[in-house]
């Protein structure tokens, strides 16, 4: 059983993004999704600092300080991009105009609660950025994360223990081990990496998992490429 790499998770998520969607990719693992967007689909990347149609990182030496993403890293614009101010940008988010937002996660609960911004309640520099707006506003939230933390903590929980980013907002979780839908009846596993068993995945999760009838294999699309 080989867990997916970060790139493997990103590549898998990218497959599910539909032609014509407007998508916000959160800082961290979700940023990597941009590298795997399927050819032939018009997918517009939104960055909360005010752009739709964000393009790839510019070549070294061609950075423009007026072109940065939400993580303050240099970007480019694709043909057909548009620029707007922060009120409009978050109007687009909060008003439900983005078909998708991919966020990193610390914990997801079986009711769709998400914790991804602050590990403890007393961090004096807990930094939320746009995460709560995205959680509250995007049409669907997909969370990308390692199935377990570095020291083995479970992250698919009955209830989040870390400070929440949003209530009941997560629609799907992509981990290095599985793809899990959040349904009214809780977590529903739809894909697992080759060699993973239902028992082991359940052992690595706190919340009760259900498994889809046609639960398939979670492929490593970085190898196929």
């Amino acid at each position, binding site marked *: 059983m080989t867990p997916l790499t970060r790139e493997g998770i990103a590549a898998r998520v990218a497959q599910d993004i539909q032609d014509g969607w407007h998508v916000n990719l959160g800082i961290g693992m979700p940023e990597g999704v941009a590298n795997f967007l399927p050819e032939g689909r*018009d997918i517009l990347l939104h960055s909360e600092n005010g752009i739709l149609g964000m393009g790839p990182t510019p070549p070294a030496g061609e950075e423009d300080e007026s072109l940065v993403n939400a993580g303050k890293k240099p970007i480019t614009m694709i043909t*057909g991009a548009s*620029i707007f101010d922060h009120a409009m940008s978050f109007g687009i988010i909060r008003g439900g*105009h983005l078909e998708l937002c991919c966020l990193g996660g610390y914990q997801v609960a079986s009711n769709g609660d998400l914790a991804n911004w602050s590990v403890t309640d007393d961090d004096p520099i807990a930094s939320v950025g746009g995460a709560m707006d995205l959680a509250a506003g995007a049409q669907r939230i997909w969370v990308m994360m390692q199935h377990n933390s570095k020291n083995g903590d479970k992250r698919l929980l009955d209830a989040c223990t870390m400070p929440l980013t949003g209530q009941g907002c997560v629609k799907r979780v992509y981990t290095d081990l599985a793809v899990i839908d959040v349904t009214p009846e809780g977590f529903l596993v739809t894909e697992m990496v080759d060699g993973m068993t239902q028992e082991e995945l359940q052992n690595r999760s706190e919340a009760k998992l259900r498994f889809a009838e046609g639960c398939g294999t979670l492929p490593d699309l970085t190898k196929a490429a």
Partner: protein
Amino acid sequence: MLDRRCKSLEEALDGIEDGASIMVSGFGDAGRPNLLLKGLIDKGVKDLHIISNNAGSGFEGLAMLFRHRMISRLTCSFPRGDLGKEISSWVRDGSLTVEVNPQGTMAERIRAAGCGIPAFFTPTAYGTKLGEGKETRDFNGKGHVLETALHADYAFVHAEKADRWGNLMYKNLSRNFAPLMAMAAKTTIVEARHIVELGDMDPNVIMTPGVCVNRLVQWRPVAANEWGIAA
């Protein structure tokens, strides 16, 4: 490929049914989506809820939806005009409901709908007839009323330029309610004077990003004899 261009006016208006709520942009003649309104008349739907600043004038555009008796409810700021007498009588006989909003409150309610703000406090209309029955609250010693977001099924917008993704620019005071309505409706339908190539508009000066637009049709002028009722 993301392409919001429709092959015909009929396709652009597909699915609009009796009872639909439709935001109609424009202020006076500036930015009035006449082609879409003409298409709606040909479609023959009725019992519409129109959200527009005015009731229209003359024998074209929004006024013709009234003359064809397609409207049963109007949300606006200024119903008085050419059709004042008719509108008054329809209100009196119960065949038309008119809800008057202060113009800025109406604009902000539409913006709020598009931006995911369900309600806001405004000083406008506090202590007046248009504030009656609304929740009030003092901020900084000044009275305010609570106003709610104003949504619609459709928005009709006239743009000067558009590309296939629906990025829009407006000309002068044709802008008015268009960027707000485009965000507030479930389905936004645009008639554009010029449909340009992707990238022809500077990203910095696009006024409505395509994410707010669903369907796009090439504008053409509507002749006086196309409205079905002569002046």
